[in-house]
């Protein structure tokens, strides 16, 4: 494998990791606040559809992004009402959200655009274009650093950079702010937070809102950055991989980034290679596809390290009377 091939695989890794990363960070806020979120997939799918549809109608990528975030936020709040206010089963709420998004996007897509659930292809303005960082072309001649800077770091969509910036932001918010401390506390011991006079309900809603907004970014990335328009079931289970990554990263922002890069790399690899050989034994491409899930199961089982989620996760908080 030459340097150009390696660079192109790594470049694809970054592109494929971004939606995982955004969704993973989205899930992090919810789950750290004590709300299990298996509805990441549904929120992303709804956002991808809304972004694709609005961008196609208005011709503006920014309007699309806004619509995607709004729809994802609305979906997150619906899930929040079920999980927080009505004290319903969070897991079932997540399943319902995923199914609702899968049904609604295809149904509305077909009814509104009549193209088998797809939204019309986007023209130039309806889609985000790649950003070339300063001095990319000037530096590309420099050996090693040049191609890495010009091909790998420069030339991605805005949402890619937002995704990676969000890692730092999340780490700061979570560990260096009052809100972050309270967020972590409410996921571990909501009663203590309540006793301290802080509203558990308000905190959890704030977390769910952030989750909704970030899922909106992740979803929009599919239809108006990476792709040009929405396609049926466009997120294709990426929300579940993001969930796996979140667990794999033990609910921490920086490890989440590395896990998403790893899972993105596996994805890039399986697209590139139809099958790989390792010491004479053929590794089927399906094995690489299944690897993120297998790794997560192994980690969850505690065979390599141990993933223990927030203690109060999944339990609705009931104030004592």
């Amino acid at each position: 494998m030459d340097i150009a091939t390696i660079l192109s695989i790594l470049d694809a890794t970054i592109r494929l990791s971004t939606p995982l990363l955004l969704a993973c960070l989205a899930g992090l806020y919810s789950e750290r606040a004590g709300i299990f979120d298996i509805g990441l997939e549904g929120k992303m799918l709804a956002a991808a559809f809304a972004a694709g549809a609005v961008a196609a109608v208005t011709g503006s990528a920014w309007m699309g992004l806004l619509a995607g975030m709004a729809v994802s936020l609305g979906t997150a709040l619906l899930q929040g009402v079920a999980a927080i206010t009505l004290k319903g089963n969070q897991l079932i709420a997540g399943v319902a959200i995923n199914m609702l998004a899968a049904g609604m996007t295809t149904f509305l897509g077909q009814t509104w655009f009549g193209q088998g659930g797809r939204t019309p292809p986007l023209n130039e303005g309806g889609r985000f274009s790649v950003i070339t960082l300063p001095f990319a072309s000037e530096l590309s001649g420099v050996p090693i650093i040049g191609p890495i800077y010009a091909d790998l770091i420069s030339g991605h969509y805005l949402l890619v950079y937002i995704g990676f910036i969000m890692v730092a932001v999340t780490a700061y918010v979570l560990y260096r702010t009052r809100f972050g401390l309270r967020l972590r506390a409410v996921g571990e011991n909501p009663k203590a937070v309540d006793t301290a006079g802080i509203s558990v309900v308000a905190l959890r809603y704030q977390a769910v809102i952030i989750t909704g907004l970030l899922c909106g970014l992740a979803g929009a990335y599919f239809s108006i950055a990476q792709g040009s328009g929405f396609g049926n079931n466009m997120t294709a289970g990426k929300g579940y991989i993001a969930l796996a990554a979140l667990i794999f990263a033990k609910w921490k922002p920086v490890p989440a980034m590395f896990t998403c890069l790893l899972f993105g790399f596996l994805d890039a690899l399986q697209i590139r290679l139809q099958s790989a050989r390792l010491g004479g034994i053929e590794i089927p491409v399906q094995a690489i596809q299944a690897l993120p899930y297998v790794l997560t199961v192994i980690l969850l089982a505690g065979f390599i390290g141990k993933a223990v989620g927030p203690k109060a996760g999944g339990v609705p908080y009931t104030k004592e009377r």
Partner: protein
Amino acid sequence: MSARRPIPRWADIALLPAINLILAFLVSGLVVLLVGENPFHAIQVIIYGAFGYGDGFGYTLYYATNFIFTGLAVAVAAHAGLFNIGGDGQAYVAGLGAIVVALALDQTHWLLAMPLAIIAAGAVGGFWAFIPGYLQAKRGSHVVITTIMFNFIAAALMVYMVNRVLKPATTMAPESATIAVPGRVPQLRQFFSFFGYSPVNLSIVIAIAALIGVYFLVWRTKFGYAMRVLGANPTASRYAGISNSKMIMITMTISGALAGMVAINEVMGVQNRLVLDFVAGAGFVGIAVALMGRNHPIGILLASLLFGALYQGGQELQFVIPGITREMIVVIQALVILFTGAMEGLFRPTLERAFMLYTPEHKTEAVAVSTAKTES
């Protein structure tokens, strides 16, 4: 208003699900209105498509067969306090067990092949649920997350198995060899011409047997009692001398085996070969069915018929009203799950209050005391 009294049993098992179902239909109806179609016409089409003629009714029963199996799978796990979200994957890999037995014995007779295929499919499906059960029981990993992961692992595994192992060299399509006629599960239309060309087959008898079997297992055996104790209070069951980890593993295996029966219906009764994605989301419908049916076999039977009718009627719908695609059914299904499973808190408190208002105070006291006595 001080103490909250539980609503009467009939309201809990019939009224509440009915209200939630009506709400789900109302919201879906609004969506239909929103896209400029007539929801009442849509309901008419669905009802006619599902029950109005032999073929349609046959298809309704065929879908219901799958949903009974997956609904029971979710319900059995739920009684032990486990949420098995992996019915899809368990049913999918069970196809391997079914097809191997079916292809090996397809020259003999279905009366020999079918029972062995049931065992094989049940074993494979059960195994696929046993692993998450084991990991939950012994390693403490959450069964919901592991079963989700196992759905995806199953999908990857099956693509490999169908394309690389089961596909005969002569066929292009990703599917196994076809089961010869003697090994196929007989169609009901062979006995009743009423069913036209619909694929409803004798697997429905297995489904009914499974309903009865689950009833006896859960409510009439020591094992079922232990299961329900575990579901109600794991600490109490441990103190009662029940091995929680053993119960979790066995319950998950039974749950997976039930989901695996979908493979008998699809592989041996309908497709006559193993195709990709033959489960088609039936595992997730099972969640709606179990929630709707309150984890009870009678409820599951009714809910399966309802969803069977919706799936068949939904097919019909997109032919008659081109503005509405069958994904509308997925929306209804999602809303049912949302309202009955996650948003129960929407109506239950109101109902509780309503029942307290309309019942004289001393009478509710008496009812509360008597139910407390019978339950203890």
